[in-house]
């Protein structure tokens, strides 16, 4: 489990170098996300190797985010992805990491507090 501040960003990687992360390690503009970027962030965060289930979670997360402009209940994300209730944790080791790999922006003080 990572502590306090967001994970370190390896700016030497060309794909990552071109991106704009905030001080907590979240991508500022979720539209600048691609599968390639997701793979690079996942590598940085020791997530993976990426499987179809990982992608299902990421797409579900992004779908929920763009529908309501907010962080959803992770169980709902898993349901939309047709995966077990705790899949976000088992696949990504926590919803904060999944959120980051999904290229979504900082969901705010309280949401990050409740994200594990």
């Amino acid at each position, binding site marked *: 489990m990572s502590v306090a501040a967001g994970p370190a960003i390896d700016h030497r990687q060309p794909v990552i170098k071109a991106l704009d992360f905030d001080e907590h390690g979240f991508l500022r503009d979720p539209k600048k996300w691609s599968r390639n970027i997701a793979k690079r962030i996942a590598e940085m965060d020791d997530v993976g190797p990426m499987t179809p289930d990982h992608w299902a979670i990421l797409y579900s997360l992004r779908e929920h985010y763009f529908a*309501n402009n907010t962080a*959803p209940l*992770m169980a709902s994300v898993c349901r939309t992805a047709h995966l077990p209730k705790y899949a976000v944790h088992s696949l990504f080791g926590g919803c904060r990491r999944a959120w980051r790999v999904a290229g979504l922006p900082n969901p705010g003080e309280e949401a990050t507090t*409740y994200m594990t």
Partner: protein
Amino acid sequence: MAKADFEVPELKEYIEVPEIVEGTMAHSKPFYAAPQHNTDLGFPGELVDNWQEKALEKMDDLRKRYRSFQVYLDSCVKCGACTDKCHYFLGTSDPKNMPVARQDLLRKVYRRYFTLPGKYFPNLVGAVDLTKDVLDEWYSYYHQCSQCRRCSVFCPYGIDTAEISMAAREIMDSVGVGQKYCNEIIAKVFKIGNNLGLPGPALADTLEGLEEDVFDDTGVAVKYPLDKKGVDILLITPSADFFAEPHVDGLIGYGKVFHEAGVSWTLSSKASEAANFGMFIGSYENMRRVSLRIREAALELGVKRIVFGECGHAWRVAYSFLNTLAGPFDFLDPNYPVPQHICEFTYDLLQKNALTLDKSENDDMTLTFHDSCNVARATRMGDKPGGQFEIPRAVIKAVCNNYVDMHHETIGEKTFCCGGGGGLLTDDLMEVRVKGAMPRMTALNNVIQDEGVTHMAAICAICKSQFTKVLPYYGMDMDQIVSVHQLVSNAIQLTRKTEPETPGEVEGAEAASETDTDAEE
């Protein structure tokens, strides 16, 4: 075990009073609020030019508005009874985290400007000028107090340290020095309706998902209604209940209890938050503004009762202040407590044998209960003294076979704070949160080792979230913290196969409402 860039206290058999280490937590301070978040709350965006003058004006205003505040500043005799009662002192060893010393950071300024000896002989009475260094020290140490009021239990004068911390934060806010976590969140409540910033459609989406989950699990269509008019009960619950584990499992439990009770109920997208961080920053005006949403929602929805979900400080605001902040609630049914706690609601049903429960559903756990500070020391439940301790335990024992209390010096009115209350539940204060959790972790570890406890239940969103993050630092598992109504949810057998009717929606509405009352009486 979670990684930490600070030293995590070692758990020993007993909670030892540490040797003091001067200034060891002087570096700790939360992020400052952005100007926008301060102004949203009616405070100056940034430190004002004449901040000393303004701060002293505010202190003068507060001592005149709240007689208690001045009494607390005047009456401390430095007896030392509080020194080793604070979890932050026990966990950090910083002498300024002794409640008396933390209070004195403000008291010595009060003495300098508002007492005769302080005005003329400041050095003799330990009075100091209000300088920028003093203000910075306030910002650091008044954000190392969770306003839990454990020290007050032991104070022979009954000095309420929380009130001093609240006043200090209010003075700082009034000169433009706000804390990011609290102020950003309060602004979000005003803007969107809850701390998490979940808009109505997101709530509806989540609740629909819960209905599907419960139906899949039980085969019964338990409803989780939003903004439904004309129902009996408005449920006000922390927005964490819509967002994260184990909170949401508690919400599932409330819905099942209402379903079995045969009462109609709803959540509100306008008042989709029980929490009231206005209290943490000591701001009456903001606390009132947050509270008024509940009144407005209750009136708009035409409910007869208000029930609060599992949230510690929200229950303090609700139980102790709601009537003066947002009352009178003369439009609610006077036959029920205004407001009522969900534990009281469930307990009433237990007294009437109105729930069918299978305790063996929780046999995979041995439970203990963490009394949350605000519930324990600032409120009550039921109609007997100590109900706030007895009722949650009675609910747990009714749904679980295996229950053990932690050491008696660490529960009840002497309960240790989780370490994250009072507006400190932010990642930028992780060090003080982890260290401040040491006394509670010690007591928990002892019952884990000696009694085979596997899980700890709580009725506060902050406590649950704090433990979820802090338990791994002490080598425990984040899943070991559970909601009380999660346990109820596991054990409850759904005997009513259809949704309770909403009075007024169907013919014979009176009959329906009578049935509801019967079910509870």
